[in-house]
């Protein structure tokens, strides 16, 4: 069968942790505080916990589906919805991954233009990043997974930088606890979906993960990754909301960057320059995995060489990207993209799980009759 993955292309289960974590902590962490504080004020940390829980449930559902079929998204779609509808859905998911790539890349380029080099052109950054991404994707999932691992290691200085404001926090800001309506907290949770939208890559990565031993450890690593990402979002949010005034967070377009501004090293006046540079390693897994996912679907659907597809996608992104290279357009793009992400994660994946359940029952009863 075409979906079988060769043993030498598979990766160890623990790498799944880095893949999922790398995709959950992405470009969104730079300004998610703003959106959620807008909805739920200083109580938005509850929304982060809610979203972490929801994502864990969705991940559990997704692994259930994957376990049943022991295959990837394209095969599942084909089995559940038939060749044409299934193929069309896979095609849509592929476009969705492509859109994620554009979001991540464009946000990063704009970040560089605003903070470091105001005169730099879109291509100068995007082509460099595309070439690096291409090199990793050509190495297959194994090299992407290793890079996700490195991404976590390289991001340690950023975590340390976040400790700079710790002595200036006003914990009063969090009181009185839970003083906002439940509706506004759920509204804030919805805005967090954008941060987690990379998780659907699991549907494609799953067959690449080795099964070691009698106990399937894959689910466990996914759970660890999601919990750690949620804790990361939570801690950073608490620091932001207690360092800045809750009314003030809304005014900063990139609160995380502004937090880095207060790091004062004797040899370095502006830490955010280092921060943005290291940021490359945080967004690279995002870009690589989404591009890999998009091209993988194309490869399986149309039986084209994956490298060719990736190259075409990269050219396509570099052509379409500059069009969204200013704040108002990117905001508009993000808005629609986050709606897509929200429905993909909170509606499509659970529906897939439910449909799979029904389908399984029907197959069983069908088999019994004969």
């Amino acid at each position: 069968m075409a979906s079988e993955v060769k043993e030498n292309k598979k990766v160890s289960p623990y790498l799944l942790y880095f893949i999922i974590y790398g995709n959950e902590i992405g470009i969104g962490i730079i300004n998610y505080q703003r959106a959620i504080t807008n909805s739920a004020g200083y109580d938005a940390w509850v929304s982060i916990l809610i979203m972490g829980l929801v994502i864990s449930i969705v991940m559990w559902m997704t692994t259930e589906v994957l376990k049943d079929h022991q295959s990837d998204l394209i095969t599942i779609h084909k089995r559940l919805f038939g060749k044409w509808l299934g193929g069309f859905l896979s095609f849509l998911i592929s476009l969705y991954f492509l859109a994620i790539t554009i979001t991540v890349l464009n946000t990063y380029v704009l970040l560089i233009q605003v903070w470091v080099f105001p005169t730099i052109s879109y291509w100068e950054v995007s082509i460099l990043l595309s070439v690096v991404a291409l090199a990793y994707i050509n190495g297959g999932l194994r090299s992407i997974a290793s890079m996700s691992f490195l991404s976590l290691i390289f991001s340690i200085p950023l975590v340390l930088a976040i400790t700079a404001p710790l002595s200036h926090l006003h914990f009063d800001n969090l009181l009185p606890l839970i003083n906002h309506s439940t509706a506004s907290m759920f509204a804030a949770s919805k805005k967090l979906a954008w941060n987690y939208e990379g998780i659907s890559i699991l549907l494609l990565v799953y067959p690449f993960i080795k099964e070691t031993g009698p106990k399937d450890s894959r689910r466990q690593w996914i759970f660890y990754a999601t919990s750690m990402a949620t804790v990361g979002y939570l801690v950073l949010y608490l620091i932001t909301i207690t360092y800045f005034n809750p009314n003030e967070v809304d005014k900063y377009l990139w609160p995380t960057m502004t937090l880095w501004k207060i790091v004062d090293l004797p040899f370095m006046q502006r830490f955010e320059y280092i921060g943005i540079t290291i940021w490359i390693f945080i967004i690279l897994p995002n870009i690589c995995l989404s591009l890999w996912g998009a091209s993988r679907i194309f490869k399986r659907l149309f039986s084209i060489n994956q490298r060719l597809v990736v190259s075409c996608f990269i050219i396509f992104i570099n052509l379409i990207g500059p069009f969204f290279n200013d704040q108002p357009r990117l905001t508009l793009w993000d808005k629609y993209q986050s709606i897509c992400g929200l429905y993909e994660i909170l509606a499509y994946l659970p529906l897939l799980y439910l449909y799979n359940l029904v389908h399984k029952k029907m197959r069983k009863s069908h088999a019994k009759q004969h």
Partner: protein
Amino acid sequence: MQNSIRQPMMIIILISLCLTGCVKPRIIDDIRLVQARGYDYYQDHLLLGTITSPIFFQSTGSGIVQPKSDVMSVVVKKATEIDNQLESKSEYQIEPGKLLVSLYNSKIAADGLLQYVDILKRNPNISILTNLAVTQGSAREILQGHYASNSLVSEYLSDLFNKHANSNFPQTNMHTFLYQFSGDGMDPFLPLLKKKDKHIQIIGIALFKGDKYIDYIPYSQAFIFKMLYQSFRKGTYTLSSTVSKYVSIENISSKIDYRVIPQGINGHHPIIKISIKQNGYVKESSSLLQGKYSMINLQKALAKKLQKDGTLLVKHLQRLQTDPLGIGSHVRSFQRNWSKEAWKDYYPDADIRIKVKVTLKHEGIID
């Protein structure tokens, strides 16, 4: 297959190396780093903007050559025009990235600082920890002066602020200003400066209502203010009963605890209880610490004095209807249905009770 991919890849990577160096380099000798800014009114509605930037000379022979401070000023109509106009005077590119201090004349501050601070906070190159201060008298004169301790006025000022943040004066910078300005139930405060011969002196705490400067607390009250504002270490306070008899106290720690009874006693207005625990030792004394001046009595006298001064200060702030201590914000954190307007009406008559406890650890190395 592998080779056919590798070759174009190599070419792309080699070409992308050419992308480096596209951004204009900025060499330190060819730019002017603005380290301090000053704003004054000029005549009636014109603005006098001043900047200082250090000029470094090459050392000719032995010894270190002190950098010289270059002061430039322009008269403009709007604050945003200042940098534009200054460009026409300077032979080098003006870079705001290393701004340390921004000074505002008290008249400008009285008309609202926000429009000036907004220029600073919008620029990603400017540190959020930039020191802001209000000046009594011309900001330009302060920046133009020659001072004994440091030839660069910007560094002198920034060191002055940093030192004070660790002693009697609460920490202030652009972040605290914006924090207090945008926060509910609090008002900003900044240091108030004045030029005195060869030195610059912090003469008090400039109080704001919103972003408008209204009044100031003299420096002698700064210890009381800081004590009511935050927990801190290392301040000095002098208790004098008569002119000749005084005791100076160095504080080891001051801990503040806010308690709010949200509904109060009659069920309407909150009661705010501020309890402060001072921990210190005797640093200087003009008399023997015996009898009337024994440590035990001294502790009581100090507590009484601090409590009285604190109450007076809070009363004064209430009369001015400004809340730099953030009392409203403390009440907000205790009250679920806190409203900004209701608090504003209530604040001038708010029931605020201060209690101070002083512990003196030792009296130095002599009796």
